[in-house]
Each structure stands twice: as structure tokens, then as C-alpha cells.
């Protein structure tokens, strides 16, 4: 059989004709399997949704309890049959609750990895390679210029800036789900024990991380903090808030941004970032290669990001490889993720010329 009979691309996203379900569809569908809670992958309005318990909880926090017709929680590692197709959720290491989805049918195994990172993260279960025939990988940082430095070294940059400018608030732009909590956990590990101030958009999700047993130390809503408390404080906010009216309450702040894109100087400068923190929740160039090899796959499909380079590398390695040219992903740390982009963009499913995000 051809793997495409088990899974192929459609305008709505990856679709399994054998199992009649979509993975991370970008538009409402009857049955969806969701890899993780970032809004470009997890959208409201599907009929039936299957995801990990934590991803379902996160979707309910973001979209309300009625985000889907019915929901089904999948345990990591368990095999569930959906219309005869075997489905398994395995840790992706991307954010809390994130999963790779493995499909097996008639002797063919395809792993749709969603977004993933093999590197250590105190807020997510570690990435576990799943042997498969076809591995579907993202390529957000799929160029050899992306080699993420050690997270502890990046947090050290923030710590030394706090020591150098004790009178200035340090605004750290970080995606509200995942990155923000990881930054908090890293700061605590580095010995930062002051209360961390939070933008309103992160409060609920941060509270949810705590219920899952992740210690993030003391946090306070930024709006409640007086001038004395703001001085020299770490303030976490969604990237969009860095350039927003919201940030003006902090006089002369140091503007930091935690993202893998900070590796590229022009990117940091384009966004007016003064303290770039190279912290990514996606695999870097070396990690992509290790992860792909670890699956033992024969074929690689690349969803979004720098697909050309990754496909080139895989072909050199003797794999069959092709890009899927999928659109609608990468809003969280993809090419569209910048301080100016909405922190949580709506579905990019409008026809050309009537883009709801930008039309006046």
C-alpha cells in the first residue's frame, strides 16, 4: 500500500482516509486528533476531538468547555483504534501535554510529530522517538544556522542584565503557552527568587501548569505591581504586548524576547529587541537530524518551516523526502511569530485579498 492511503494532505490539514479523521486541522472538521494546545494546531469547533488530557484542558481554558462536540482523552503510549486505524500519542517535548501521533494500519506506521523538541524542558515530558516508516517533521529551525545554545546560558544573559540594570523592569516577550512557563522554570533553576510579574494573558495557563505539579515560584499580576515592585522585576508578556500600549506602564524597560528566532540578528533588530534570548521549543538543526534518524524512518514528510534544507539533507542521507507545503502553522514560533503578530492569531482560512487579520 501507499502511505498516502493512510494519511495525506488536504486544504484543511493532514487527513486519514482509512480512519476518516484529521490531524491538527486548520478548519472545523467532524473528527480531529490534536497534537498540542497551540492555537495554530488546536482550533475550536470540531465535532469530535481526541488529544492528551492536558491538551484538552488547555483547549478548554482557551476556548471554553464547549470547544468541541465530544472529547476523548488519550493516554501517552496507549493504542486506540479509530475506524480500524491504530492511534498512539507519544511525548513530543514541545510543551505541556504535547504529543506525536503515531498511526498504524496494514503494516504501515506513520508518525505525525506536530511540533517537537528533543532538548531538556522542566515543563514537558521528554521527546520519545517512535519507530516508523514515515516520519512527519516540522522544520521551523531547519537550517544549519540554527543551533540553539544551552538554555541556562541564555537565562544567564537575563540574570546579568538584571544585575546591571537593577532599576529597570525587564519585559520578556514569550508565547503565553509553554515558553512563558519554561522561562519561569529556568529562572527559578538559575536562582531568581523574586516574584515574577505576569501579563493577564498568561495567568490562567500559568495557574494550570501549577495544577499539573510544575513549580514556577511566586507570580503576581503585573497590573497589581507598584513602581517599586516593577523596578528590576522580570515581567512576562506575550510578544505582541512588547510593542503594545500595555508596555508603556513600565518606564525605560529592557526589552527581551525569548525565541529561537533571536539567533538571527536582523530578526531581533527588526523587532526592536534589546536583549535577545535564544530559547526555542522546537528542534534545532542538529536535533532534527538526530530525531529523524532515531525513528528509523524510510520516508520523511516536512510540514512547515525551512522545508527545502531539511528535505535536501534527508535526500543526501538516502531517505525519500518531500515537503508538504502546508500553510496555517507556525504562528507560535514560526515565521509569523514576532512581537507585532497577534499573540494568538485566528485561523488563517480566509480567501486571498480578504485577510481578516490585516484588513482595516
Amino acid at each position, binding site marked *: 500500500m501507499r502511505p498516502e492511503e493512510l494519511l495525506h494532505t488536504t486544504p484543511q490539514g493532514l487527513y486519514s482516509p482509512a480512519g476518516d479523521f484529521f490531524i491538527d486541522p486548520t478548519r472545523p472538521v467532524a473528527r480531529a486528533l490534536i497534537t498540542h494546545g497551540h492555537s495554530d494546531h488546536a482550533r475550536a469547533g470540531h465535532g469530535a476531538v481526541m488529544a492528551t488530557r492536558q491538551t484538552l484542558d488547555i483547549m478548554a481554558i482557551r476556548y471554553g468547555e464547549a470547544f468541541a462536540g465530544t472529547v476523548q482523552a488519550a493516554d501517552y503510549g496507549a493504542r486506540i483504534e479509530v475506524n480500524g486505524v491504530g492511534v498512539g500519542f507519544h511525548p513530543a517535548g514541545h510543551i505541556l501535554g504535547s504529543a506525536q501521533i503515531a498511526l498504524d494500519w496494514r503494516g504501515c506506521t506513520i508518525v505525525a510529530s506536530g511540533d517537537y523538541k528533543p532538548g531538556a524542558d522542566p515543563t514537558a515530558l521528554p521527546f520519545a522517538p517512535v519507530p516508523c516508516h514515515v516520519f512527519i517533521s516540522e522544520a521551523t529551525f531547519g537550517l*544549519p*544556522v540554527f543551533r540553539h545554545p544551552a538554555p541556562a546560558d541564555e537565562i544567564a544573559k537575563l540574570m546579568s542584565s538584571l544585575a546591571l540594570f537593577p532599576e529597570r523592569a525587564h519585559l520578556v516577550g514569550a508565547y503565553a503557552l509553554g515558553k512563558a512557563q519554561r522561562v519561569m522554570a529556568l529562572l527559578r533553576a538559575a536562582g531568581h527568587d523574586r516574584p515574577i510579574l505576569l501579563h493577564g494573558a498568561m495567568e490562567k495557563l500559568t495557574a494550570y501548569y501549577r495544577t499539573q505539579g510544575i513549580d514556577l515560584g511566586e507570580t503576581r499580576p503585573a497590573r497589581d505591581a507598584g513602581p517599586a515592585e516593577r523596578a528590576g522585576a522580570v515581567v512576562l508578556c506575550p510578544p505582541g504586548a512588547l510593542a503594545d500600549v500595555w508596555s508603556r506602564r513600565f518606564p525605560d524597560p529592557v526589552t527581551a524576547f525569548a525565541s529561537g528566532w533571536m539567533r538571527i540578528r536582523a530578526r531581533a*533588530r527588526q523587532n526592536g529587541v*534589546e536583549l535577545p534570548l535564544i530559547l526555542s521549543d522546537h528542534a534545532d538543526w542538529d536535533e532534527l537530524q538526530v530525531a529523524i534518524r532515531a525513528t528509523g524512518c524510510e520516508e520523511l514528510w516536512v510540514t512547515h518551516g525551512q522545508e527545502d534544507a531539511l528535505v535536501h539533507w534527508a535526500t543526501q542521507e538516502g531517505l525519500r523526502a518531500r515537503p508538504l507545503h502546508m500553510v496555517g502553522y507556525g504562528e507560535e514560533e514560526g515565521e*509569523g511569530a*514576532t512581537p507585532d503578530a497577534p499573540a494568538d492569531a485566528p485561523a488563517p482560512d480566509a480567501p*486571498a*485579498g480578504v485577510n481578516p487579520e*490585516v484588513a482595516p
Partner: protein
Amino acid sequence: MNRFAALLDRLAYEPRRNGKIRLIADYFRHTPDPERGWALAALTGALSFRNAKPGLIRQLIGERTDPVLFALSYDYVGDLSETVALMWPAPHGLNDTEPPSLEAIVHAFTHMGRAEMPAVLTSLLDRLDETGRWALLKLITGGLRIGVSARLAKTAVAALGDHAPDAIELVWPGLAPPYAELFAWAEGHGPKPETEDPAPFRPVMLSHPLEEADVEKLDPAAFRAEWKWDGIRVQAARAAGPDGRHVTRLYSRTGEDISGAFPDLAEALAFDGVVDGELLILREERVQSFNVLQQRLNRKTVSAKLMLEFPAHIRAYDLLVDEGEDLREQPFDARRARLEALISAHPAEGRLDLSPLVPFPSWDALAQARADPAAHGAGADAEAVEGVMLKRADSLYLPGRPKGPWWKWKRDPHSVDAVLMYAQRGHGKRSSYYSDYTFGVWTGETSGTGELVPVGKAYFGFTDAELIEIDRFVRRHTVNRFGPVREVVHTPTEGLVVEVAFEGLARSTRHRSGLAMRFPRIARLRWDKPPGEADRLETLEKMIGDESHAPRTPAAVLGKQRSPAGEM
């Protein structure tokens, strides 16, 4: 080298002028001689490594990485040094050794032969981390581009003590790296360095763009108007040295000595003083367009043929120093009178003439002159006029860009609504975003009919927020890929309309549309407008007819921050 690399890295991100000055001053304060002096030389552009060419760097990375991956990475990053710094496969273990000092690097690169270069550079790249590699490559290729001007670096030297930045400028021309005596003086524990240059640079005075709304508030009687010439701002300083012989220097507006590029002009000057004016090419007493001037710029060697074909002149509009007397504290009218006297006494073949005043009784009258310089005194030179300058009659010559005394009032640009057709990733500041846009208009008899033909390409005019919107549009609406170029959807009902502003149009055989735009830029994004309502080619062709009395040829740019016009 570590400290200096860290400084460059910080500077690359610091947007505030004062922040940059503090960072540099802090580095100078905590770094000993001569290391800090070499750093100052690097920041002021006083270092040059003749052997380090981008070609060698490409060769070294090419020997170590896959060419396809390098090409994709370079396309993405948009900067050779940074791409190589990030991709360089450094061997493990070597980073434990102490990286070399900046002084040692400068010494090595100044004295080594061409043959030794690849081995020395490789060894250094192996021993440095990513930031160090980036700084080294920037340094030896002479392209720091970290938003630090020579003036800013000198201001940071001034900040070490209580001298004014202009005081540093005045002693600067007589100094050489590593500037130990300058730092000693700046820090208050050494004598003032003797300047040996009798014709140093004086910081120039700049103007603000005039908005239509500003005009109402200004009194026409308080201002003088001049043509704004489309050339290069130049300061000609000429004075006798200690041996009695005259020294002539031509400076750019940033104080760069460009005398070497215009020896014919420097030799023809015969005054004693400092003249502020516009460098222009004159043929048969007629000013040539910037396009012509451009052909003389940025040449490595100035041949006799080049000097003959492109004779450089100065059209003077201010006098800062007259026979040793500093006029900068005098009002414009007084300086103007002295300038007119100096010009009339100057030899006629001396390639120096006077930029005339444009008389105007009212703002309306000046607006008319600005719209049609040919009929208001500029005559045959009108095509080199890009607007008018307004200077208060009582304005002193103040360095920098003070708001109020001087205004520039450019000619109104043309604009059309065009449809985005192709996009390519930018370089430099815009790298990794789709920021180079090719746009087209309809060939049919009505909008939306016929086909779209490209009429130009623009890289700027949009805000950073708009760049992100267009970038997203491009990525989501790609219909074809040609290497680095993406074709985006452009049908009568689907696509993005952009309002393109430009300075002029010319016939061009290089483009299928037969037209080339001068200085096109994106004025507005028209998300509201369907592509079928964009402009037609015929509309543009009529514009060429309209301005046939003042044909403005496409000019590109070097040193003037202008975009090459209509390059496909």
C-alpha cells in the same frame, strides 16, 4: 577580542543613541590601551584589511559545508558574515584556549601575506565562539554595520571626560590608531593632541522634511529658499598648512574624506575657507542627473577618462569659514553675502559656482516654483532639482539636525495602485522576511483586463508592522516558486493591491512593460481594493507624457539611501 565582540553584539541590538554611547564609553573605560584604541579605529572605520575579501570567506565555508545548505542559509540570514559565523563547524576542544586580542588580530591581518591568510583566518574562526566569529568577520570585511557612526564613537570618547564631541572632531584628523594620546586627553590626564590637519571636517547642519501642515505656521518673509539639488552633500575645506602650502579636502556629510575620489575637483578649487555645497556633474554648464553622478561614485580607481567624462563641480550654498574666520555663529544672510563675494572672486574655471536663491513672495508662489523649477529660474538644470530648501534668514550654522531653522520641501511623488506579483526575501535589516516586491499593472483597456505586467520593484516605504502583514500574505498565497522568488496570487479577484509612490518614470527596454520607475516605494497597502481595480499601463504611459518637459531618468543609489529604480 572577547570584550570587543561582546560590545559589537550589544551595540547591534541597542536602538537608543544614548544607550550606544554609554555602552561604548563603558567599554573604553574598562579596556586598556592599546586594545581600546584598535576598537575605536574599528568603530570609526579607520581600519582596513586589504586581504580579507568575501570571496575567501565563501571559499573557506564552502570547503566545510554543503553548498546547497549554505545557499539556503545565506538566503535566509541575508548576511555573509553572520551566516558563516553561525554555520562554521568549529572543532571541539579548541575553544578552551584564550582567544587572541584585537591588537593581535589587527597586527596579523595588517602584516601577513595573501598566502597565509586562509590558514590564519581558519585558525581564528576555530578558536572563537559564534559571537567572536561574527565580530571577526565583520571587522575584517569592513562591514560592521551596527548603527554606529564615526561621530557616535567619538561622542563616546568625549563622554569619558568633559570635552564636547566637536572638540574631539577638531583634533581627530591629526590622529592615528591606537589613539593613546586622545584617550589620555579625554580622560583628563594628558595634553591636548596637536592637530596637524589645517583643513579638518566641520560637522554639517541638516534639515527636516517639511510637512504641508507646517507651512501655515511659517512666515515666508523670515525664510530664504534655494533649489534642493539631487547630488551629494559635500564640504570643501581648504587652508594653508604649516609649510604654507594649501591643503584641500572634500568631506561627505558624515565627515568621510572623499578627496581621493575627486582629485580633479580638489585641484580646481582656489579659495581659503570651508564651503558647504552639493557635488554635481556639469557638462556644458548643465547639471546632470543623479544617475550620471552615480556612474562616478564608488569607483576604486579614478581614471583620467572618468574625470573627463564626469567633471565634478560644487554648487555652493553656505560658507562656514572664510580665510580662517569662523562664520558659523553668524546668521545665514551674513554668511550668504560672504559666500557670494568668495564665489565672484573665484576663478571661473574653478568648478565652483553659486546655488541661486529662489525668490518667493508667498508659500503658494514657492509651491509653484517647486512644482516647475524649469520655469522658475532653474532652467535646463531643473532635472537635477528635487525640491526646495528653506533656510531661516537668521539661522546660525548649527551641527546636527536642529528643528526649525532649515527645512527641505521635496517635490510631490506620483502614485499608482499596482498588484503584488512576486516577492523575494530581503537582505540586511529586512532579512528573512519577504520584503522585495515586484508589482504590476493591467495591460487591458479597462482595469482587471489583459494581463499584469511588472512595472517596478520596491523594498521599502512600508512600516515594520506592514512588512509582517505582507510577509504573511506572501507565505500563504504563494502559487509558484522560482528559486528564492515566490510568485503570489494575482488575479482580478485575488491578490494584494499596493499603492506605489515614485518620483518619475522613464522608458526602459529592460522591462516588458517598457517603463522604469524612479525611486519607487510602497506608500500604502490596499487590502480593501480588489486587484481588478488596480491601475492600467496606459495610465503610467500618460504620466511619461506629462513630464516630458522634465524627463527624470531612473537613478539608483549609493550613499544616498535610495533604491535602484525598477530593477527586475
